[in-house]
């Protein structure tokens, strides 16, 4: 197999990735990219297709249609997929371990597979987590299982870390510790792709987010763009204008509620606010939006509240 020496810009790339389970379309034509060296948050409601996507990326299930590359290895090619998995560390939602092994055996068993094993990270995490080396993994508490799974993943020196709900079930101190590990891995040049329901932690450490809904990508943006470009603009009118008069570049949605018009914009907030003032709106307010608001806004379904029209 030929490993390209050309530096690829993306750690993960998918093209119209689709997965059916019987009649159920779990992932529907998902095309997305995760640039190398980034921390990318993968968001979506339960059942949106996050785990199905991750399973296809890691060669644990075959796409029904479409294709993808992880670290430039074809995910549908069995041989390439094995090669790819040597360079990727994955922490599953259920933190699976071999129950008949002790903590120490589990570590020794894992590290022989990985030439890039980072002994200093193993030691550091053993100290910090105070994991009992001779305890069978079967008898570990939920928190300790997670800690061991994280140790095994982070000590591998992987190029790509795929973490499915990594902070799920961790107390706040451990959750912060995990985020520190993620940040440290990124500082070492790793790409981190993690799914989470904890929007605040995504906001804290990610550079990019991908949001999927019902198997499709609904938002792909950077945290910086959210902080500087996404705005909610509210104006009060004597007579509310037709939403169509505000169909400007960057306008995502216009909601009219009596005399108040609320506009969600993804860019151009200044010129859009000017247009509203020119329409003689009074009290035009431009408000920043949190990632949480943006996620909720992106997941709004037709037939929800409001008389929205974009």
């Amino acid at each position, binding site marked *: 197999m030929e490993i390209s020496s050309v530096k690829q810009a993306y750690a993960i790339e998918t093209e119209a990735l689709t997965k059916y389970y019987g009649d159920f379309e779990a992932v529907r034509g998902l095309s997305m990219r995760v640039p190398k060296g980034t921390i990318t948050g993968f968001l979506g409601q339960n059942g949106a297709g996050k785990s199905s996507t991750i399973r296809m990326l890691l060669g644990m299930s075959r796409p029904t249609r479409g294709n993808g590359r992880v670290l430039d290895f074809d995910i549908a090619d069995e041989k390439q997929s094995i090669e790819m998995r040597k360079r990727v560390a994955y922490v599953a939602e259920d933190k699976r371990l071999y129950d008949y092994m002790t903590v120490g055996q589990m570590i020794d068993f894992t590290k022989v597979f990985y030439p890039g094993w980072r002994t200093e990270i193993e030691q550091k995490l053993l100290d910090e987590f105070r994991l009992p080396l001779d305890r069978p993994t079967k008898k570990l508490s939920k928190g300790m299982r997670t800690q061991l799974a994280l140790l095994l993943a982070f000590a591998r020196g992987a190029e790509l870390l795929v973490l499915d709900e990594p902070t799920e079930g961790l107390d706040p101190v451990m959750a912060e510790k995990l985020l520190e590990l993620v940040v440290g891995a990124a500082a070492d040049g790793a790409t981190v792709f993690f799914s989470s329901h904890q929007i605040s932690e995504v906001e804290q450490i990610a550079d990019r987010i991908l949001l999927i809904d019902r198997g499709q990508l609904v938002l792909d943006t950077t945290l910086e763009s959210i902080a500087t470009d996404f705005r909610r603009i509210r104006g009060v009118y004597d007579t509310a204008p037709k939403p169509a008069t505000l169909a400007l570049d960057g306008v995502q949605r216009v909601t009219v509620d009596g005399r108040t018009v609320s506009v969600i914009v993804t860019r151009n907030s200044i010129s859009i606010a*000017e247009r509203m003032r020119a329409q003689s709106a009074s009290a035009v307010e431009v408000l920043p939006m949190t990632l949480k608001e943006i996620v909720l806004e992106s997941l709004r379904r037709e037939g929800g509240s409001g008389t929205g029209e974009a």
Partner: protein
Amino acid sequence: MQLLKPNPASGVPIYLQLKEQIRHACETGALRPGDSLPGIRALAESMVINPNTVARVYRELEQEGLLELRHGVGAFVATRPGTSRWTAARSGQMKAAQKAAKTFVQELKRRGIGSDEIRRLVEAELATHDGRVPLVG
């Protein structure tokens, strides 16, 4: 140097918050010319923020002349004369300004104005002052 963890939900990008904090530390004299800053990794880990963000802040502050990046050694507060906005006089001014800001915030809080409202008022004032389109108006 005591840097605070940024607030991701404030509507200000984390990189701007960090940049402001470093600038502020230089202006108040908490950081002085020649002082070293934490490494990218150390700062990212201690603040639990993206290392790319720290790298970007250091790069931009270097371009602005506030920091010097010495390859393989780390980041330092620039010692070049002429760019010393953080001279003793400036540092005194900033301390006085900080006091004034404190009094201002306390007074508005006493009148029942919330943090978000204060932030918006200040933003609008600044925008008007700088000749930009005001955010509230």
